[in-house]
C-alpha cells in the first residue's frame, strides 16, 4: 500500500525538468511498452510501465534506489509502439541522471579498460552504441597517457567495444576474451564424437542471449542435435572473426552465428555490426577457399518462433556433407 506522504511531487517536477523526462506525465500506464519490452522477456522483474507509473506518483526513494531503472537498454522497441509517443528510454535516462546526482551507482558489469595496452585509437568510442566511452588523459606508471575511459552510468555492458578493439584492451566481465575463448574451445571439443566413432561433422552455434528469448526458442538451445553445440554471447556484435577461426581450427565443420533483427537489437547496433562484420569475413573466407556454408549468420526476431530449431536442424544435416570435405585440423 502506498501512503500519501510517500508521494513527492517535487520528484515529478525534477523529472519533468530533466532533459528527456518532459513527457513523463503523458503516460496512461497502458502497458504496451511492457508487452513489447525485449528486456522483460529475459528479466520479468523489469517493467517499464511500472517504473514510469511509480515515478509519476512521485515515489522518489523507491524509484531512485531500484536496480530496474538501469536495466533499460534503450533498444527503443517500445518507442514506436507507445500510443502517447513517449521516448521511454529518454525518461529512464532522465531518472538515472537524477539518481547519479543523488549518489546512486549503476549496478552490474560495465566495460573495463586495460590502460597499459590501450593505444587510444578511439575505435571503441566510435562504435559504442551508448556513447559511453571517451578518450581521456590518465596517469599510468606516473606518466600521463591517453586511453579510453568508460562512463559507468552510460555503459550497459554489451561488449561491442571489446569486439572492435584490435589490442584486446577493453572487456566486459562475463564475456571477456578469455571466457569466450574457453567457451569456444570447450564446445568445439565437446561436440566431437567419442573416440573411435565416425566423424559425421560437428557444428557450433554462437547465439545472442536476447534473440533466443525474443523468438521464444530458449528451450531448444539447451538440447541441440548430436554433433552440434550451442554457446551464448551477450550480443551477436560481440562475435569476432577470431571466434570463427578458433572454432574452424579446432575441427568445427560449420559455425552459425545468430543475432537479433537489426531493429530489435537489444544493444541498438550490435546486430548491425555483426551483419557487416560477418559479410566481410564470409567474402574473405570465400577468397581463401572456405565453402560458403561453413560460416553463416542468421537473424531471429520476435515473430520467428521455430526458426532457430529449423536453422540448427538444417545445420546438423549440412555438416555431414561438409565433414566429408573436411580437411581436418
Amino acid at each position, binding site marked *: 500500500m502506498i501512503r500519501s506522504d510517500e508521494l513527492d511531487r517535487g520528484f515529478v517536477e525534477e523529472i519533468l525538468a530533466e532533459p528527456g523526462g518532459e513527457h513523463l506525465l503523458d503516460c496512461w500506464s497502458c502497458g504496451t511498452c511492457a508487452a513489447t519490452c525485449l528486456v522483460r522477456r529475459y528479466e520479468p522483474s523489469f517493467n517499464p510501465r511500472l517504473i514510469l507509473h511509480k515515478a509519476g506518483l512521485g515515489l522518489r526513494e523507491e524509484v531512485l534506489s531500484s536496480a530496474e531503472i538501469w536495466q533499460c537498454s534503450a533498444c527503443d522497441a517500445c518507442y514506436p509502439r507507445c500510443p502517447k509517443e513517449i521516448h521511454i528510454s529518454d525518461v529512464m535516462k532522465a531518472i538515472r541522471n537524477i539518481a547519479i546526482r543523488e549518489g546512486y551507482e549503476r549496478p552490474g558489469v560495465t566495460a573495463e579498460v586495460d590502460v597499459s595496452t590501450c593505444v587510444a585509437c578511439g575505435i571503441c568510442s566510435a562504435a559504442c552504441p551508448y556513447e559511453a566511452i571517451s578518450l581521456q588523459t590518465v596517469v599510468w606508471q606516473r606518466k600521463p597517457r591517453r586511453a579510453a575511459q568508460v562512463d559507468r552510468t552510460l555503459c550497459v555492458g554489451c561488449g561491442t567495444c571489446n569486439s572492435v578493439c584490435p589490442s584486446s584492451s577493453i572487456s566486459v566481465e562475463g564475456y571477456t576474451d578469455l571466457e569466450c575463448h574457453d567457451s569456444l*574451445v*570447450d564446445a*568445439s*571439443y*565437446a561436440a*566431437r564424437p567419442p573416440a573411435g566413432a565416425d566423424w559425421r561433422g560437428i557444428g557450433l552455434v554462437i547465439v545472442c542471449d536476447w534473440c533466443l528469448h525474443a523468438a521464444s526458442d530458449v528451450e531448444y538451445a539447451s538440447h541441440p542435435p548430436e554433433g552440434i553445440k550451442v554457446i551464448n554471447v551477450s550480443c551477436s556484435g560481440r562475435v569476432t572473426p577470431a571466434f570463427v577461426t578458433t572454432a574452424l581450427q*579446432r575441427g568445427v565443420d560449420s559455425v552459425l552465428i545468430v543475432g537479433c533483427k537489426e531493429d530489435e537489437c537489444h544493444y541498438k547496433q550490435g546486430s548491425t555490426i555483426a551483419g557487416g562484420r560477418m559479410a566481410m569475413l564470409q567474402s574473405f573466407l570465400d577468397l581463401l577457399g572456405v565453402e560458403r556454408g561453413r560460416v553463416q549468420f542468421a537473424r531471429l526476431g520476435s515473430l520467428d518462433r521455430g526458426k532457430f530449431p529449423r536453422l540448427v536442424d538444417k545445420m546438423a544435416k549440412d555438416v555431414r556433407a561438409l565433414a566429408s570435405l573436411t580437411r581436418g585440423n
Partner: protein
Amino acid sequence: MEARILQRDRLLQLVDELIKDYEVIAPRDELSYGEIGSSSEVYLAEEKPVKSLKEFFFPDREVLFEYLLRGEEVKLVPLSLPDDTARVILCARPCDAAALPILDQVFAGDYLDPSYLQRRKSTLIISLACQHPAKTCFCTSLGGSPAGTEGSDLLLTPLSEVYHVQVITERGRALVEKYGQFFQESDEAWERERALVEAELRERVTKRVDVEGLSEALEFGSPIWETLTPQCVDCGVCTFLCPTCHCFDIQDEGDPGGGARIRLWDSCAFREFTKMNVAQPRPTHFRRYRQRIMHKFRYYVENFGKTLCVGCGRCIAHCPSGIDITEVLNRVRG
C-alpha cells in the same frame, strides 16, 4: 687434398641414384631447400634460396612431446626421435654448411639436443661452390669462401669441363666409394685449376667487413646504439633467414583432450622476446638491436670462439628496411 672428378653431365644421374638410397634435399625453388623426388626438381640459380639449411636440423616447428588429458590424468607421449633415414643434402651453399659447426656449439655441446643430433648424424652434406656470389655476400670476411669446406662432407667446385669433388670427411669418402662408377681420379692439372677457380670466386665476393678486433670493439655501454638503426621495424626476417640464429620459444598447443608441446623459432628482435611478468629488459628497439649485434659478434665469440655469422648476406638482401649489417658494424666500430 683428397679429391675426385665428376663429369658435368653425370651429376644429375648421380642425383637420381642417390634418391634411390637416401632422402635427398636440394634447393627446390628460389625460396627454400626441400626434399626432391627426381633430379629434375633441383633448382639451381645464382641467388641462394631465401631460407637456409637451418630448418633441416633445427625445425621451425618441432613437436617435443604430446600429452593426453583424461579427466584428472595426464599421460605423456614422449619425444619420438626423427626418422634415422639417411639424408643427403645436395648443392648446399658453403655458407649454409659452415653454419652447422657453429650451431653445434649450442645444440651438440654442453647440451645435447636429441633430435638435432639425430639429424646431424644421419645427414651428409654435399656443397656446391657458388659461381656468382651476390652483392650482399660477405663470407670471405668471416673465414669462409664461395668454395669453403667448413661443415661439408663433399664440396663440388665447377671447373671448365668437370666438377672437382673435394673429399672432406670420412663420410664423404664412403659416399664416393659407394658410387665409385661416377667418379674419376683427380690430377695435378685439375688441382691447379681448382685453386685458380677458388681464388677467382673469392674475388667475386665484393662486400667486405673487417672483423679483426671487432669483438673487443663492441661496447655495450656505447651511446652509438641509440641512433644506429631507426629504420629497423623489429620483424624477424633477419633472424629467421639467418643460418646461425637459433632462438626459440616453447608453446603448448591443444584442447581439453590433450595436445603437444612445440618448440618454434623466436627472435630477439621481437618486442615481446624478453618480456616477463615483472620486467622487460629490452623495451626499446635499440636494446634489441644491440643484443643482436653483441650476441653474434661478441658474446658467441667469447663463449665458443666462433662468430655467430657466416656472411651469407640474407639479412641484408631481405631486410624490409634495407639495413646492411656490414655497414652497421663499420659504423659501430667508428
